[in-house]
């Protein structure tokens, strides 16, 4: 019986650790200075991964690297991506 209680306690401890870990990440995100802090902050606000799927379909790099205002501009691609792709990975 004691062994069983011990096992359930360990499970509970594991779940509490997850909560503490997320809290730690949150604290780090808000307090981290400089570039890493900005990077995490931006990551929280934007869905950046979707861009990868768009860029890979656009064609030759040289075709769109200089073209921020035209057909492949960021706003257009973001609208297109949000419709087409899942963004959870």
């Amino acid at each position: 019986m004691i062994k069983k209680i011990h096992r359930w306690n360990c499970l509970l401890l594991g779940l509490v650790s997850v909560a503490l870990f997320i809290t730690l990440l949150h604290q780090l995100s808000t307090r981290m200075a400089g570039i890493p802090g900005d990077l995490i902050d931006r990551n929280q606000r934007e869905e950046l991964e979707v861009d990868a799927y768009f860029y890979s379909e656009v064609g030759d790099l040289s075709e769109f690297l200089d073209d921020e205002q035209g057909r492949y501009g960021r706003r257009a691609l973001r609208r297109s991506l949000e419709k087409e792709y899942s963004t959870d990975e």
Partner: protein
Amino acid sequence: MGKEIEKLWKSEDYWAIWFAAVLFVGIIIGAVSMVPKVGKWVANPADAFAGDTGLWIAALGIGLGVLMTVGLAVMRENWKKFFVGFLAVFMLAVISYTIAGQTTVKAWGFGYAIWALFFGLLIANTVGTPDWILKGARSELFIKTGLVLLGGEILFSEILKLGMPGLLVAWVVTPTVILFMWFFGTRWLKMASKSLTIIIAAATSVCGVSAAIAVAAACRAKKSELTLGVGMTMIFTVLMMIVMPPLCLALGIPSAVAGGWLGGTIDSTGAVVAAGAFLGPTAEKVAAVVKMIQNVLIGLVAFLVALYWVAKVDRDPDAPRPSLMEIWYRFPKFILGFAAASVVFSFVLMPALGHEEVSSVLGVSKTFRGWFFCLAFASIGLESNFKELASQLVGGKPIYLYIVGQSFNLILTLLMAWIAFGGILFPVFSE
């Protein structure tokens, strides 16, 4: 020969192909137009299930459970117990996706795979996984089905459009790093497990989690080896995502070169884009494209590893060279499903349906693939124990292999990125 034909409806490898085919056909004919996914949330996890999302996810769990139960019934396995267990594993997958969807957790790059493994391991190593749940934890079947779905995303017809500089960085460095790590691990470190060596090499050089899964399935690695490979990759990915952009700035590396460097070295697509975006649009674009070109290599690497294992590693050294038929019998058939999906999407569906239609099909299949991988990692966690995992780390050789291999990858990729994007072989990209 008769036995080989019978495998079409009795083997898990073939059923992975049939499951993926059913899902692909369902999406293409419009029977499945969306796959629900757990949303983002900040402070209240219930926000992840806003609107009808919770109901749709429950329907997805039942739907996938029924689909796979049919397969198990035809394979003459205990389908009733599987279905009940599957629902429990699916719930664990939902919990993992929910934690991964918390905005801070997501921003740090701790994806569903690490949470599914963690929760599975936590249950298995504390209260123990009940037998009825284990009946539904069919990790290999989930992995194989997810991999066949992944095959559709590998569009060969699109590669050439991506441009020579990206191809140069992704396709010269990746095979070189795999071979370097393979020889370093097997000859220098003398690692006991060849499958663990190739998993770490593929995860480091190709694209992290997906490559690790594909290669582990191709060489029939132990679950603890895949767990270790994925765990190490994810931890180092987070570190690299945070450390590399400031390093690029400190070293004064031009944006396009930095993008090529990030895209070729950071393991997960999400982390690559996040790190690249920080350095500006050029770096973000170059990083994303290099990563996507690199991802295409998953299929080729998995195919070659499967072939090498069947023909060389798994065979008795004293036995004669295996015949082509013998190689065919032992070859993991789902790898062929993976390749077939890629060929069909690249050369049949793309010309027939057009780019837009194929993109929307893949948008749906990609979410299915994510669910299958999440189910696989939850199952692996539920079936594993810490002792076995710790035994893989004895002597620290896997960590040593990863660090040396990744360091080599960093140096070689920077060199190639400079040649490709620094104005040496091709014109300099301006911002």
